[in-house]
């Protein structure tokens, strides 16, 4: 592999020299972007990975060992991104100058002029795994406890149960408590659903005298 690249570079140099001296046609040299994808050893699945240069201007396919080459690229600035449905890799901007010098830097869309140099040949490591799914909410008892409303409710219940016992047995307070108790007493004027059902389905009439 490395021999081939050396060869190819050698020829490109050779051709630059010959073309500049002999012909008048404008010929621009083409370069090769190289890099390596490093996957965790247990997930060594390179089959789904595509390397995109400038969103598909050039498409690379990884080799067995995770390295890749994208050849035939003229000088310029490109974004090299490694795409896989199961891994996220950070894209890298690769600048190839007119002399064929290649440098890599971090992609920064907001400040395109900012230069944060990265290593070349490129090395892509798994940044994180994409999370496509929202976690489904499941009912758990602990959720109930963590709810602030539940805390309020328990506090209220506790205070209802224990406050009357802690309170001094003041006459007026007792009255007030009785009034509040009255709130929870069934209102005799309210139509009651059980009564309604009984009336509707004609419950045994003997209950009525028993109650009175």
């Amino acid at each position, binding site marked *: 592999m490395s021999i081939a690249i050396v060869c190819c570079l050698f020829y490109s140099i050779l051709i630059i020299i010959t073309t500049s001296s002999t012909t008048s046609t404008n010929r621009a040299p083409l370069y090769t972007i190289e890099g390596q994808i490093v996957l965790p050893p247990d997930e060594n699945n390179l089959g789904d990975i595509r390397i995109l240069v400038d969103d598909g201007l050039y498409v690379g396919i990884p080799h067995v060992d995770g390295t890749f080459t994208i*050849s035939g690229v003229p000088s310029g600035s490109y974004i090299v991104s490694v795409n896989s449905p199961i891994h996220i890799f950070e894209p890298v901007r690769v600048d190839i100058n007119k002399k064929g010098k290649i440098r890599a830097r971090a992609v920064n869309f907001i400040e395109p002029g900012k230069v944060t140099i990265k290593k070349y040949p490129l090395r892509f490591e798994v940044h994180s795994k994409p999370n496509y799914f929202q976690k489904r909410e499941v009912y758990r008892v602990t959720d109930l406890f963590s709810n602030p409303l539940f805390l309020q409710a328990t506090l209220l219940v506790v205070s209802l149960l224990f406050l009357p016992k802690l309170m001094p047995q003041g006459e007026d307070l007792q009255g007030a408590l009785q009034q509040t108790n009255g709130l929870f007493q069934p209102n005799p004027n309210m139509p009651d659903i059980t009564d309604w059902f009984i009336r509707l389905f004609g419950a045994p009439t003997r209950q009525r005298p028993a109650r009175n």
Partner: protein
Amino acid sequence: MRWRKVFETNEYGKIDRIIWYDQESVIISGQGRRARSLRYADGLEVWQLAATTTNTNSNQDTVAKHCQVIKNRYDPGTIHILSDDLLWSVSSYGEMLWSIEIPIKSTLKNLFLLSTSQYVIVGSLDSNSNQLQVTYYSKQDGQQAFSSSLPWSFNAKDSLNKCSTMNNLILCSNNDELSIITIPTTTDDTNVKTRHIKASSKIEQIRILYESTTRSVILIKSDNGETKIYQFNKKESTSEWDFNELNIQMKSNSFISIATDKNLAGQQILEASANDQKLNFHVSTINEQTLTNTRSYSVELPENMGEIEYLAYSVVKNTQLVTLRMQDGSLLVIKLADNGAELILHRDEALSSIISVETFDLSLSITQMRIEEEFGGTGMFSMFTKRISSQVSQLISFFLRLMDLFTHGNRNRDYLDKQAALVRDEFNLNKILIVVTSVGKVFGILTQSGGILWKNFFPNFAPFEHFNAVHVPLFHIRSAAHYTHEPLASIVYRDRNSLHDTHIRTFNPYTGDLENNLTTSSLPYHVKRVFLSTQAVDEFCKVLLFVDTNNKIHTYPPVPLSRALSTTIPTYIYLFDKSEQAFVGYYLSIDENDQKTSTNLKEVWRVSFQNEEVINIHTRLSSDRVHSAGIVLGDRSVLYKYTNPNLIAVVTEGIDYQKVPFVNIYLLDTVTGSLKLSHTHKRVKSPVHIVLSENWIVYTYYNQRYRRYEAVSSSLFEGEAQYNYSTFSSFDPIEPVIQSKAYILPYGVNAIQVTTTEKGITSRDIIMATPNGMLIEIPWILFDPRRPLDLTPMDREEGLIMYTPEIMVNFESVINYYKYVYNIRGIHTVATGLESTSIVFAYGLDLFFTRVFPSRIFDQLKDDFDFMIIGWSTVAFVVGSFVAKRFASIHQTKKAWK
């Protein structure tokens, strides 16, 4: 499918030739500029090499580039590639052997590439002197050894189409004559020999069926349908060849392929021909002059697939396999065995070339139809009887179904399931997708399963050109709403052979059956534009309206224009004149009593573009609904939207006086011809993808200056007051207030679309297909041009988000999860019966279908909603209340006794 590798969509990814080896194959793409080797086992790359220089002369791009790739017959591990002016050789194990340049001029073209055991020979044609320069390069290092030239008597322009190369022969056809030019292979022998074969009529095609260092077989096809096969044998120790005709009788439409295998005694020749829905094969062994052991096979095809386009015959481990590509894009693999031929693989590859999509609602079920009928009728008595009778019939059918269930059990379950698949579900979520592909095959696809319901192939199909793309008009002639009539869809396309002829095909979208009354191949005018009538005419059918090249409007089927179009609302039509780069608006005046079926158009406005070229237009979706006329601001005042339904977006491209490329976006009112919005972007590259909906537009482009993808969002508002709250007219003197913001996108864009819901109440999401295979759902509020730079409490009250230039994409908004889809060309969205739900269908190389919920599921229960718990707890409460009541009454009685 074991693996798949998707190459570039541009020229660089176009495959020129594939050379097959034992373990891997070498793929030459990009017109001979790149060679890469892929392993068969897993599709991973073994090596990649590319040409080391490129020609930057810009005027060269206009000339069609030409490339030839050959495998050296004497050294099968070496591949020679001639790419325009570059000649390079690679070895099959990934070594760049050498690369040289051969200068070309406009009059000098490198056309032919031949190889021998010692030399690589390039034939370059000098059209000035009509000479073919034959240059010999050393196979080892590419050094030029010597050159010679010979007179060339053929037309310089189409030499490439009419000539083929084979070993050291150049075969050229000239009318009814085939010339065989022998190029000498060694330096001592410089004699160029030319011999001729006469055909009975003009030669159409020369194909090389088989090529080896000592034997070759070619096919000559004449335009009268006569096909001849010649066998070439190399003479001992010379570079000359003998040839003789093979005695074979062939049909005019048959294809030929030859297979060789070590195990085979000789070569086998396969003749294949398509006949309606049948493929016929004849396999023979080639002897000296004749064919022996002819065996015939035939295989019945499941549908009409047109003619054969490509044929390959191979013998793998004693199994005879035939691979075919048909005219309709189908890929077929057929196994030939002693007991006959068998179709072992059929793939509809046409589905990767979809150009038009429409969705149809499924039909109502019988019970749903009865319910619809129940509320029909007029008068109290008839309504009452209808209601009673339909309810009785419902009861009867319920009992019949119960009986059926008891007697037959699950036996006819499959049949019922199949029937149920075609019936509309409760919320109208499942639909039928009608897709038209560029090869002329139309599919009906069920959305719930993706299964193909029916397919129709129209052999003489050619799509219309639409700016820089192709399209086929596809219309709902009659929708599924009229349950008593079957729905109808129409497509309009041109004839492949005579592009001025227009065909109309009308079919039932549920079955694909053609409706012959509304199908025609002969319109007496040349169609410029086609659209659908606004009003239904007979039996709820709409009619097609055609504008011909003389700016006359016609109806099909011929009905009076006054019935097809509204006479109360005036009709305006716009057309685009490509030669003048102008949009022209026409007014159509219809008299109510007029019975004319065609009339002339009157020009009312004209918008022409100078120094810029219109590259695309974009219209809003016909299903676009606007629910609210305004936005309630934080201070409880209302900002009214400018919702002009007549707007179209126009994209133009050009180069300004400083040689800076620019892209302009306009919003054009197609009734008045006025421009409501115009944006200029300098140093920007198309393609521009647009979404136009309600009162806003979002478009994306590539910014060359900052080398990033950007999106611009603009909204149009009437202001604090509304001019006319009931109806909108383009003639109202409203000057819309425009608000715009630009955003940076994290990925490139292949296609973009907005979600559609039934009433337009649900908030909008933008669906974006990216080149890396994702479909991303981005809420429109992230693109809102009113996002403030600093957030005031009032903005917060309104629900605005603070402006950030970058649009952040969360992976949770990727709607295709792990199933990445590549090279998406379009996205189709449809509303469903549920307001929260929109259907998304993305098409391109891959197809993807899903449902999205832009405002979450607000009108449905969750999937995991526990009906049991709710049901049982309700029962428990009722029972509990009875018990408690009893206890309470006992308690009270006891209390009363105290």
